[in-house]
Structures are given as C-alpha cells and as structure tokens.
C-alpha cells in the first residue's frame, strides 16, 4: 500500500511569465484510500513544490473554497477521492469560465458582484424592533426554500454552465438560486426588488436549460430548477391580473 503512487497534473500559470497555463506533473505517494485531490495538492505544496497556488479552507465540503476542474469536471477537491481515479493520472485545472489569477486560483469578482445584485438577504418593507417578536415559520414554509439555502457559493455551477462560458453577462445559476431562496422565504418581502435583476435580458431568460449546473452541484441545490421556477414565476406575475400583488 505504501508503494502506491499517483500522478497529479496540475495547471500552472505565473502571470509574470506565462501567456497561458500549462500542466506540470507530480508523482506522489497515494498512501491512504481516503485521500482526496485536495490532500494531494497539500502534499505537493508541503513536500514537492511550495509555489503551487490554490484556494482551500474547511476540507469538509462546507466552505466552497476548493472548487477546481478535476479531469474535466468541476468538483470540490476536498470531496474528490483519488481512489476514484487511480491508477489513471488526475488533471487538476482552475474552474473554467473564470479568469485565472495564478495556477489554480480564479478571479471571483464577477460572481461576487452578481451575487450582491440579487440582494441575497431578507428584505422587509418595514423593519420591526427586536422586541416586537420573532418571524415564526412552519416546517412547510421552511421546506419551500430549504433546498436552495444549501448553496455554499463554490461556483462549480458557473464553471459547468456553457451559457455563462459563452456570455459572462449572464446572471448565472447560484445567484438566481439564492434569489429564489429568499423569494420563497415567508419572512421576505423583497421579491419586487429582486425581479428587475432576475427578469432582465441577462437574467433567467438567458438560461437555455442545459442542466449541467445541477449535475455538478455538490450540495444538491438544483440551480436549474430555481431558474426555471423563476421563469414561470416572472411570467405569471407579468400575465396574471394582480400577479404583482404582494
């Protein structure tokens, strides 16, 4: 078991020297069947090449920092087991559709702006003082949005979305899923404020339902479902009498 080895081909890009990323191979020990791709990258950084750059934090699929392209598929590297690839080499590249800053690190600014634009927080027409009590919800009301609240902003859905890849003006899956999450929340009164962003040309109507965002989502959020439901919702609000009544 101790002699088992695996080849990791990591994308390298130095903005000071390189015009484009290139792959660099590392042959490392694969000592434990529970090793994940992130463990392999950490081994390379600690023992082989300290200059390899990548993002990571929690190592347990919660923070959403370690999203990369593993053998062509966007994945959280902390939950991509090497045993699923061995003895073939594992190619690790940055998330597709995003500008690469260095090695496996991408520029997240575009996503952050889009996320902010849908106001993913509870909006009230009039804030009540804390002493006025809680905004209670039934289990059924929580179930309405629970699935969409699981999003960890890992951006795998953006990397898998060809619509975003072809035109990055598209608002994108995660931002729409989070907007849907708050629109479905019984405590929220901000649907009308979010609608202009969601219903604009680069909003939900840009999506042609490829569905790959939901396939790669590590938390089962199903952003494609959120987008299609928002399309239906915006249509009904536009066509039905009193559709926009809150």
């Amino acid at each position, binding site marked *: 078991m101790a002699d088992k080895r695996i080849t990791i081909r990591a994308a390298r890009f130095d903005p000071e020297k390189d015009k484009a990323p290139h792959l660099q191979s590392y042959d490392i020990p694969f000592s434990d069947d529970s090793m994940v791709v992130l463990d392999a990258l950490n081994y390379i950084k600690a023992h082989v090449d300290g200059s390899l750059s990548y993002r990571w934090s929690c190592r347990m699929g919660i923070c959403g920092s370690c999203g990369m392209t593993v053998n062509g598929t966007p994945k959280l590297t902390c939950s991509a087991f090497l045993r699923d690839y061995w003895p073939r080499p594992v190619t690790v590249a940055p998330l597709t559709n995003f500008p*690469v800053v260095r090695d496996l690190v991408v520029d997240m*600014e575009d996503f952050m702006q889009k996320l902010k634009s849908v106001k993913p927080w509870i909006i009230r027409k009039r804030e009540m003082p804390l002493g006025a009590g809680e905004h209670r919800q039934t289990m059924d009301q929580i179930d309405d949005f629970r699935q969409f609240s699981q999003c960890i902003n890992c951006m795998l859905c953006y990397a898998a979305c060809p619509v975003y890849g072809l035109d990055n003006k598209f608002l994108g899956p995660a931002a729409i899923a989070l907007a849907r999450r708050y629109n479905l929340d019984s405590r929220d009164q901000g649907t009308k404020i979010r609608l202009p962003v969601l219903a604009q040309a680069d909003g939900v109507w840009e999506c042609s339902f490829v569905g790959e965002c939901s396939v790669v989502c590590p938390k089962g959020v199903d952003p494609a479902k959120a987008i299609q439901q928002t399309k239906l919702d915006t249509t009904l609000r536009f066509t039905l009498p009193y559709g926009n009544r809150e």
Partner: protein
Amino acid sequence: MSAEADSTAHVATRVYKPAMGAGWWTRKRHYFLYMVREFTALPMAAWLLWFLIEIQRSGSVRTFRPGTSTAFVIFSFICLLFALYHSITFLSLAGVIIHAKVLDRPVPPRAIVLTMFGLWFVASIVIGAVLIGFGR
C-alpha cells in the same frame, strides 16, 4: 485552452481568460444531449416548410393527400421521432419547473409530470379529431 491574456482586468496583475471553443458541446454527454434537444427544432421547421410545399403542389388543402410522396412520408416519420424526443424530454421536466400547491400542500413532481403527459394525450386527440373532421 486557447490563450488570451488580458492586461486591462481590474486586478493589478495580468490574468488568463479562457475562451470556450466551438466544440464545447462534444466534451460531455450531457452537453451533447442538450444540443440534440435544441437541434430538434430545425427538422421540425424543415418539415413544416416541406408540408406547405406539398400542399401547394397538390393544388389545394382539399386535394392534398399526405401519402403521395414517399420521401415526405419517410421525412415525416423521422421528424415525428424528433418531435417525440423534444416533447418527452420537455414534459418530463415539468415536475422540476412547476412549483404548485393544492390546499397549502406541495403537489408531488411525479403528479405534475403525469398531468402534463395526460394533457398532451388529450390535446393530441382533440387536434387529431379537428384535423380529421376538417379533412372530410
């Protein structure tokens, strides 16, 4: 990956912007099936045009008989397969898209899909009956 370095990005250092190649849809089976689904619109549009030409050739709608051109019958059969593929994949997704409640309880996605297929069946019978009725 095709190269395009952008020095005008908001970050201080130069970044690499990957561009999607024209063959992106061949990379994954899911992407390919999506393209097939979208492509089904083209043969159906071609069928409609051919249908109108066949009617014009026969002189009028009253004298048109669909079985006179073997090529048109074969093409119609192929288009039927495309139409069925499009309809079945579309209606199967109804359970995902429609978020309905009856008596404050969410309707199960399977019930929505079955309702959609039922409505499709009824609509097909009604349209078929209307067309046959007008044809007589």
